[in-house]
Structure formats: C-alpha cells, structure tokens
C-alpha cells in the first residue's frame, strides 16, 4: 500500500535525482523523494533556452534530460540510499520493452518504494504524448507492468479534459494510484521562434483540480496524488476536498525553496 508521511512530495523534474537539496532542506518535511524521469538510455535533452516564465506559471522544454537507467542504478542509487528516505523513481519509456528493462534494472533496490510511470511528458517527440492518445497501447502497458515488478505503480497523467478516457483503461488493468497531473503541452514563441513545452505552476492548477474532481467522481477506489500549481496549504486543502490524498509540489519550489517547510508549519498535520 502507498503510504508516505508527510503526504507532500516534490514533483518529478523539479528535484533533480533527489539528493541535490540535501544541504538546503530538511528531508523530514517530505514524505518521499521523487526523481526526475529516468529513461532506458541517457538523454541530452533539448537545446537552450529551456525555461520560459509567464505571469502565472512556467513553460519548460527540458526534454527528459537524464543519465539513463544503467548509470542511475550504478552511480545515483547509492547516493539516494544514504538519504534514508522512501524513493519514488519517475520512469519514462518509449515502448513497453523499455519500461520492462528499467523496472527490472531497479527492482533490486529496496529503497525504491514506488515507480511513477510517466505517461505524459510533452517535451519529447515520441512516447510521452502517444501513451495517452493510444489507449489500446496504454491498456497493454498497464497489464504488463505489474508482471515485471511488485513495487507500487503510480501513473502520472496530464490533466486533459478527457482524462477519464485515460484513467479507465488503466484502472481496468488494475491500476490503483494516479498522479494528476503532469504539465500540459503548449506552444509558445521565443522571439520569432516557435517552441513546444509543458506548462506548470498556478495556471495548471485549474486544469488539475477539474481532472482530480472528475476522476474522484467516477472512481472511489483510486488513490490520487494531486499535482499542479500547489504553493500553499490552502491549495492542498482544496485538492483534498476534491479527493486527493497526497500532493506533489513542483514549480513553486523555484520561487520558494523553503516551501516544504512552510507547508509543514502551515498546518499540514491538521489536514
């Protein structure tokens, strides 16, 4: 069963591999560490610029830069093991066989309490979006992953208007945990150049709140981890009222590195 205390977590992509904040944060203010997306092979990510600030949010086009699962297993996991913290590894595969490889590679690490299956990274040209638009393929993935691992599987989805079309085949295949939601795909202009990225922050909150509400309305047996624009204890209260039980904080960490401490001290234990 998924159980982390306190019920707040960093959103994948904002917290590095998980050890980078050691000198700055009290890790007791987090329920677990969530790593950035790990892929089968190392990825260099997109060219600069990768960040585009807007008034109420952020657009990023990092492009799933990461060291790849082999290096992650050999060099990064020993560092994470020393944190004495539950680890959730965000996993991004471009095929079922890639997910299979990554999970089998990491299964041996008892520190990893769950995999967060990244179905929705909008910054790559393959894999990310296609999982959520090809529901047959998605259903196959959801049936195959529990055969590869006994660890908990959280499915991270973008808060699209048709989220129930995505959640239903996952639940039919036995999925119990949903992270709602990842960034939403957008197009923006950097000067004269058009670019695609994922939008996050305050503006995402309204999409994510609707998505959480829809999923909870339809399914009362799924555990929902809310993610999208959380920057205050009030945001958490609202998501909780909609049916979320855990909460990921991402973009807000950039404008306030002390946000986990602030939320813990702002009455989290009473929620």
């Amino acid at each position, binding site marked *: 069963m998924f159980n982390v205390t306190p019920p707040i977590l960093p959103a994948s*992509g*904002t*917290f*590095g*591999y998980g050890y*980078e*904040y050691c*000198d*700055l944060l009290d890790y007791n203010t987090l329920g677990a560490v969530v790593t*950035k997306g790990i892929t089968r092979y190392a990825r*260099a*990510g997109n*060219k*600069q*610029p*990768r*960040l*585009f*600030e*807007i008034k109420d*949010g*952020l657009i*990023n086009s*990092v492009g799933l*830069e990461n060291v790849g699962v082999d290096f992650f297993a050999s060099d990064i996991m020993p560092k994470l093991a020393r944190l004495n913290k539950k680890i959730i590894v965000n996993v991004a595969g471009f095929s079922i066989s890639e997910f299979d490889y990554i999970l089998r590679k990491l299964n041996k690490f008892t520190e990893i309490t769950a995999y967060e299956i990244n179905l929705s990274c909008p910054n790559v040209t393959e894999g990310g979006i296609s999982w959520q638009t090809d529901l047959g393929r998605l259903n196959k993935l959801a049936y195959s992953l529990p055969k590869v691992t006994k660890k908990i599987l959280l499915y991270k989805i973008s808060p699209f208007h048709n989220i129930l079309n995505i959640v239903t085949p996952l639940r039919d295949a036995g999925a119990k945990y949903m992270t709602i939601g990842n960034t939403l795909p957008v197009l923006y202009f950097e000067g004269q150049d058009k670019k695609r990225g994922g939008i996050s*922050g305050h503006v995402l909150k309204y999409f994510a709140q609707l998505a959480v509400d829809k999923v909870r309305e339809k399914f009362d047996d799924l555990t929902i981890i809310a993610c999208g624009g959380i920057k205050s204890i009030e945001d958490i209260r609202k998501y909780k009222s909609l049916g979320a039980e855990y909460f990921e904080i991402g*973009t807000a*960490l*950039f*404008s*306030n*590195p*002390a946000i986990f401490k602030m939320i813990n001290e702002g009455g989290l234990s009473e929620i």
Partner: protein
Amino acid sequence: MLYIKCRIIKSARLTGNISLLRLDLGVRLNAEAGQFLNFYFNGAILPRPFTIFEEHDEFVDVLVKNRGEFSNKLCELSLASEIYILGPSGSGLPSPSLDNCLISGGIGLASFKKLVDYNETSKFELFSFFSEKEELKLMEYFRGSNILQNAVIDDNRDKMIKFFKQKDFSRYEKIYICVPKQVYKSVWDYIPSSAMVSFDERIGCGLGSCLGCTIITKSGQKKICKDGPFLQKGEILYV
C-alpha cells in the same frame, strides 16, 4: 548554499540605470570570484541571478542594471526592505595567471571584481564596453595597480564585436569574458578556445537540480547555476 532572508541596507544609483545594492545577509558567504546570488522577489516564478560584486563581512554588494520589471522594482525598494536569496551559486572563476585579459560588457565587469582584488600579483588588462558615457563611473572600482584599463563607449555593440574580430589574444595566459549572449554568439568563432566565457541562461532551481540551465559540452552536461556560469569556450559543443 543558503536560502535566507536579507535586508537591503544600501541602494545607490550609480548611473541612470545601474544601481549598487548592499545586502545584510547576517552571515559571511566567502564567495569565490564569479559566483552569484539568486534573488527571490516580486512574485516572480524564477529567481534572478546577480553576480556577487564585493563582500564586506556579512554584507554583499551586487550591481543591478534596470532591464525590466524585476530589476526596476528591486532598485526601488526602500532601505531595510527584506528579500530572499539563495547562494552562493556557480563554481567560481579559475585562478588567474600572470598576464590576463578581462572583457566585459556593461555590468559584466562585476564578475571580475573579486578576481582582481584577491590576486594582486597578477596583471589584468581590462576591456570594458559601455552603452552610455556615465557608465564609465564603474571603472573607478578597478583602479588597482595590477589593472590596465581600456574603457569604450559602444551604444550598439558594434565596437565590441569588432574588438573580438580584430584582437590578438595570443599574449595572454588567461582570458575571461562576460558579455551579453547576443555578443558572444555573434563572435563565437573569434573567441580563443581557452577563454572562460560567462554563459547566460535562465535559472530555475539555482542549485543544479532542475536541468533548466544545462548546456552540452564535450565533457557532458554542464549546469550554468552549478558548474558555471563561466565555462571554457573550447568545451562547448554549440551556442
């Protein structure tokens, strides 16, 4: 690395659009030359980086050029106003040799202050390009006997670009460059491979975790906020 609240104890307008801010951090940072602080203020999503110009015990000075809403409002803050900073960020400049060339555009010379002050036995030839005549005042901070100054008024960057194209860098053992991104991109082929160039990318987390500021080099991914902002030109695969 610290994330702390600090007070503005001095805000001096040096020119029409450049100010010096002094912050009381309450602690000594002992930052290295070229390191910077990330400023959190005005509800901005991303922090803004400012080079550590000088330190006086627990006080830190930064130079701020009015470029937009963030910097404008920062310079308008009254004394005793409090803001948050994260730092010191970046890896600092490598030690200079005996004969060094420094090239700066505008307040880019802030990166070199600690370098020249803490290396009195090294010689520095400083080439500073300014868009307005009153910015020449900044050269007063670089009057050490180990510094040979060359200041140029260059309102459209033409002179800076021409300088790079024509300059013979061979007699310098080390070269440090802090100029606007559009300039270093346009003169990239004329910058010596050994030169340390300050890269200008948007900062996300400020401590090397979000990979928002990564650039790709021959020896792997480098994060501007942690491995930079100065990186060796010859290492960079593309700008």
